[in-house]
């Protein structure tokens, strides 16, 4: 089984990558960690595609604190997210999420930008961005723009990225005093995509709960969040998830099971952030 790659160019720097993307008029894809892209090329799920390899673009890497934001470069590997002190201190939800992604060899290559652009509805990092109300920094020929996570994930494997744009970084608000965060998931088997997962950001000003694996995109459980902010019990809030989430029946689990798991996860995450 061979990757269905129709061509390959190594981008020297960010402008080079963008210009290649623009020239390809949607027929080339960005190759970051490749842990989903190459797998799908191997299975010939994506058709033949040309690849723009950005792994040599140094300016896309790195984690830095910029004011009240943690800026994480698109090429930052999951392993780096898991081991970064900055991430652990300022956005613990991401630090908790990273080790849940696949297995060590995958985490060594997989990148945050790749995960967000791929937008697998069962993936951890898109839900982290949503719960944390992060901004996705996107660049194209027309320049840079910032997209709030809530607007970025459009549908199943579909984002707000135009065909000549790429993710360069994310900017995540850092945790404020008294803020607690929890990322949890339930999978059928260790290392698998989650049947359901939650990223709970519990701020003194209000709670944000993003779920993954229970709809076509990561979903903010606005009904349950409002109830929690009103002082509802975890059970009461969990009961509202039926209106918030859109789980589907699929080969991995029936919708009802996913909804049930989401309810349990909400209770457990609240117990963790409020213990």
């Amino acid at each position, binding site marked *: 089984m*061979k990757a269905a790659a129709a061509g390959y160019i190594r981008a020297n720097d960010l402008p080079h990558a963008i210009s290649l993307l623009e020239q390809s008029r949607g027929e080339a894809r960005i190759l970051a960690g490749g842990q989903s892209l190459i797998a799908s090329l191997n299975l010939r799920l994506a058709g033949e595609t040309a690849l723009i390899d950005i792994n040599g673009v140094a300016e896309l890497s790195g984690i830095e604190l910029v004011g009240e934001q943690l800026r994480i470069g698109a090429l930052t590997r999951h392993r780096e997210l898991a081991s970064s002190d900055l991430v652990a201190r300022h956005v613990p939800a991401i630090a908790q999420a990273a080790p849940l992604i696949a297995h060590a060899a995958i985490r060594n290559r997989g990148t945050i930008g790749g995960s967000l652009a791929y937008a697998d509805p069962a993936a951890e990092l898109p839900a982290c961005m949503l719960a944390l109300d992060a901004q996705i920094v996107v660049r194209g020929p027309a320049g840079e723009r910032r997209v709030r996570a809530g607007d970025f994930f459009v549908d199943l494997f579909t984002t707000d990225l135009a065909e000549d744009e790429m993710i360069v970084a994310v900017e995540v608000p850092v945790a404020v005093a008294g803020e607690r965060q929890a990322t949890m998931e339930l999978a059928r088997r*260790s290392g698998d995509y989650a049947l359901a997962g939650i990223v709970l950001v519990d701020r003194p000003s209000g709670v944000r709960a993003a779920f993954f694996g229970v709809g076509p995109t990561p979903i903010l459980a606005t009904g349950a969040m409002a109830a929690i902010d009103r002082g509802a019990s975890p059970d009461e809030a969990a009961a509202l998830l039926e209106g918030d989430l859109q789980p589907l029946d699929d*080969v991995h689990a029936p919708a009802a*099971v996913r909804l049930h798991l989401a309810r349990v996860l909400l209770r*457990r995450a609240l117990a963790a952030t409020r213990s």
Partner: protein
Amino acid sequence: MNTQFVGQPIRRVDGRLKVTGGARYAADFNLDEHVYAVIVNATVGLGRIVSIDQAAATRLPGVIAVISHLNAPRLAYHPHKGAIDPATGERLHVLQGDQVRFYGQPVAVVVADTLDQAERAAAALSITYAAKRPAVDPSASDTTEIMAEASKGPKAYYPADTARGDADAALATAPVRIDAFYDTARENHNPMEPHATVARWDGDRVTLWSKTQFVVNEQAEIAAIFGIPTENVQVISPFVGGGFGTTLRTWSHVTIAALAARQVGRPVKLALTRKQMFFTTGHRPRSLQRVALGATPDGKLTSIVHEGRGETSRYEEFIEALTAGTGFMYSCPNVRTQYRIVPLDTGTPNHMRGPGEAQGMFALECAMDELSYELGIDPIELRRRNEPEIDESTGKPFSSRSLMPCYDRGAELFGWAQRNPAPRSMRDDREYVGMGCASATYPVLFSPTRARARLLADGTAEIEVAASDMGPGTYTSMTQVAADALGLPLDNVRFSLGRSDFPPAPPHGGSQTMASVGSAIRAACAAVLEAAARNREVRPIEAEGSAQRDPEVAARFSMHSFGAVFAEVGIDSDVGTIRVRRALGVYGAGRIVNPRLALSQCTGGMVGGIGMALMERTMLDARDGRLVNAHMADYLMPVNLDIDRLEAHFVDEEDPHVNPLGVKGLGEIALVGMAPAIANAIFHATGTRLRNLPISIENVLTA
């Protein structure tokens, strides 16, 4: 019998090669000038090929040939029935016609200079079909069960019907009754190594470097298919990266590799993708079973009814031991078994580790557990009260039977006494905890085998048999047997296998390799020692020996291995996740030739049983027969973190009757019994009886 090495925990002799990447599996053979073949599979589940447009594919760089039924030579396909082939029906004749019998059937092969080019061209082939809706669900109303030809009559190896007493009448009047249906999923073997064949023709002779558990059958089958003398085919298979039965048969890709190589006049390498393995390399058939038990209030069985159905293809009648264990497991005056198969529009199933016993014993052992709760009798005690003196299905004594010693030892090691018998009574933090047990059995098979032994001038010896080693340690255990038989140090014995020009061995399956090949090696060693004593000058000197079972002994005894399997599960009380907290198997399997190897062999089989119980299921789309989860991300099998504490133990068992070595085999029985032990533990944990495999979170939640 000299047992300096037999019985000792010798380190595996092929260990060094395997930890250094030096062991060569089929796809590791790179020949000069070889080209690559990629199979194109049908994308409909039943019907006919209407057209193949190969123009675009043929134009691509590197493409040497596109071969389909439109241009493939007619192959001889002389009659050939290997020891493992279904007795009734005829194998798939590949690329010989426009008929599509199942989804994924090979319909063309592309040969190109590089693998990448062949893949591209395969994807560029445009094929149209006239499709019909296939029948792929044995429980659906559009299927019909049949009695397999080979199961007809009382002398059949797997009889369609057996009866003693009047089981149905006894059931109707039994004071205590259990009557339930069980459904086990279709599974795929999924050894880690994908099937591969490298084929090279030299005139009218062909050499196949191929993944196989049965080299002499692959040789004979390819000879029959191509209509050439058997000796014109050489099969070489030194290492097999796991098999579990899938490479017992010679599947269509081997023929395709040989055909492609002959057509293009170059050596050809053909490796199946993981997805293609799901199409054409056999599978454990789904089973649908009913088990009814009748008993007296004090737990004496008065009736056993076991009716089982398994899948087969439209073109071959695959049968296995689905109901075979039921007649002799327990003492009971009234037993009736019935075994039918359901032809479907799929590829032919084949033997997968513990074939038939794994599914059949799941049903029987769950039913026994259900009965124990109904009676309020401890499940082990229930089995003790029904322990037979003899094999009541044949009237013969067992050559050895250690079922109750296995239970006793297992109960002690497992801490069965700490189990609160009431369901849903044990808890550990958030988990409901349950403990379950089940019996395992597998027959002691034996097939005629030949071996060659050669003594060299330097005092070393070479042993050759056309056997296989898919992992359990044939290389090592046979070296032990030969060293003992020759009185040589281990390092002075070199055992070779996996070549069809070596003396013939039976299929490396059915847990018979140790017994059959080992016995033949002893005979060959004795023969060469005798020859060497007669002629002290000539070296090297060689001799062959053979082994077969004494028919008189075989007629006198019922020969089976037995085991007792224990499992402890934890069920998350909120989310229904099922975790096997620990499992333990105790086996009475005769002489254990190498405890170090036997231990891994058994724990590996137990993990296979955990997969069967909780994860493994090949799903088909009823609309078109498409395999829904034909890759490793969606066909779940246990990973390391799914396992916790696993133990395997052996009771001392001397069986002088089974074979000269006194070994009974381990590969199959290690999987049998695990799934029912887990299902029984889940009942104990939750109070919910789940009878369909695999058992998953949603089954627990919605029960």
